[in-house]
């Protein structure tokens, strides 16, 4: 290492900042400004945000409180609102009942076929909705050993499934459960399994450790998963159309109402019903956002 005393340049006047050192010919490097990056990303990112805001604004501007009240006064739309509330709630509850154990097992245990089960759970999410509805229809009418699920339901439960409100719930559940399972798996992944293990050393069986230690930590995630399942059920259309039909005052839910009103040229009513669904979606989103940040 050269000492300062040995350096002929030592003591000389320091070169100005940015000057090219002796022996170097290239210009000093200057980083350009950051504003083009920000401008490009903000412009491109804004396109989608503005599109969504414009869609909502267009819906609001193309109707009026009078149209909304008129739509809500129609008996078939009131029936659709009631059926939607009931079926969405049942489908979301069923989804939580089934998805919770499934998500817990996937989160806590390594078992043969775990990846395959996770892949199966992804299928309802990516499957075209009409295909899912068609698959449900085929499943309930596929003869196996001389009987179909439809005929078994009629014989043993005394009820028809296809083209009834039961089919609405099944169609909603078929998709919503996958979303609930994904959401709950994330919730359980965030909860440290160590506390459960300690609970078991303290005398808990697995079910007691789950109920006393895991569930109290997971409840916000459970509510969020329920809300997501409810919202998915609300927006379901394709599987309901194919498996339950769109019969007025029988299997008509809000998503099918929009379709039916459009098909008979009642644009105002379709928009009014859409606004009801948008309002419900915003409430659901608010709940999920509120709980999502506090899960586990």
């Amino acid at each position, binding site marked *: 290492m050269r000492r300062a005393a040995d350096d002929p340049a030592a003591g000389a006047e320091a070169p100005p900042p940015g000057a090219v050192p002796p022996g170097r010919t290239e210009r000093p490097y200057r980083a350009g400004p950051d504003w083009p990056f920000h401008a490009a990303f903000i412009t491109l990112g804004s396109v989608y945000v503005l599109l969504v805001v414009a869609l909502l604004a267009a819906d609001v501007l193309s109707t009026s409180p009078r149209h909304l009240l008129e739509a809500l006064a129609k008996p078939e739309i009131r029936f659709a609102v009631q059926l939607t509330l009931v079926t969405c709630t049942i489908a979301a509850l069923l989804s939580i009942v089934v998805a919770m154990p499934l998500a817990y097992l996937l989160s806590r245990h390594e078992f043969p076929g775990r990846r395959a089960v996770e892949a199966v759970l992804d299928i309802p999410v990516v499957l075209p909705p009409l295909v899912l509805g068609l698959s449900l229809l085929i499943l309930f009418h596929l003869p196996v050993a001389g009987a179909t699920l439809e005929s078994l339901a009629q014989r043993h439960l005394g009820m028809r499934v296809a083209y009834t409100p039961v089919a609405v719930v099944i169609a909603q559940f078929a998709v919503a459960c996958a979303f609930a399972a994904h959401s709950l798996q994330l919730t359980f992944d965030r909860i440290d399994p160590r*506390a459960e*293990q*300690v609970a078991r*050393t*303290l*005398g808990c069986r697995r079910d*007691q450790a789950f109920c006393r230690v895991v569930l109290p*930590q997971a409840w916000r995630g459970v509510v969020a998963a329920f809300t997501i399942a409810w919202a998915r059920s609300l927006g379901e259309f394709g599987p309901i159309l194919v498996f339950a039909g769109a019969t007025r005052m029988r299997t008509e839910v809000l998503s099918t109402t929009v379709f039916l009103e459009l098909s008979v040229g009642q644009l105002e009513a379709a928009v009014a019903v859409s606004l009801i669904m948008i309002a419900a979606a915003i409430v659901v989103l608010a709940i999920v956002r509120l709980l999502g940040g506090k899960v586990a």
Partner: protein
Amino acid sequence: MIEVCGLTVRSGGFRLAAADLEVPSGGYGVLMGRTGSGKTTLLEGICGLRPATAGAVRLDGIDITGAPLSARDIGYVPQDLALFPTMSVRDHLGFALRVRRVPRAEIATRVATLAESLEIAHLVERGVRDLSGGEARRVALGRALSFRPRLLLLDEPLAAVDEATRDRLCVLLRRIQREHGVTTLHVTHSRDEARRLADILYVIERGVVTARPLASLAAAGDDA
């Protein structure tokens, strides 16, 4: 008395090989070893969190090797304490008693006595999220002792606390252990903790456990 005879436990790629260890009834055993030497794997094997592939664990003469976790009668304080974030200090101290369906009045009495003994009576209504390191360790210790276990396993219970807190907790641990008369196995890498607490000393190196005389702790240095 805890007897570990040829216990073999696998943990991922690590293998604890045929560990032998014995702590007499009411004794305070200290197991020393460097990070990654298999201390925690051995404790998890004893309390049943990891299944043994060979060997046996006997507690007061009863083979508990294949017994379920909940039936082993072992109080366990893991290194990360694993407190229950939704519960208060009082809930922690009464947790094992509620699981055992002990009458409420008795739970209240025992929790109050335990909290007094651990010097955390003023904290019982607090949640555990905002406790200091020393307070959290006392709560974890109380939770593990609350059901009067026959064996207490402590996995580096004094790690990550300042020196003054460690001194106070050392005194507390010895006092509490004598009051409860519970056989204890304490895992640490600190010679100082071992010097102050051990009745019997074991050292674990690369998954192999060997007994050492307490006099060997006189050697200089604090860490294993």
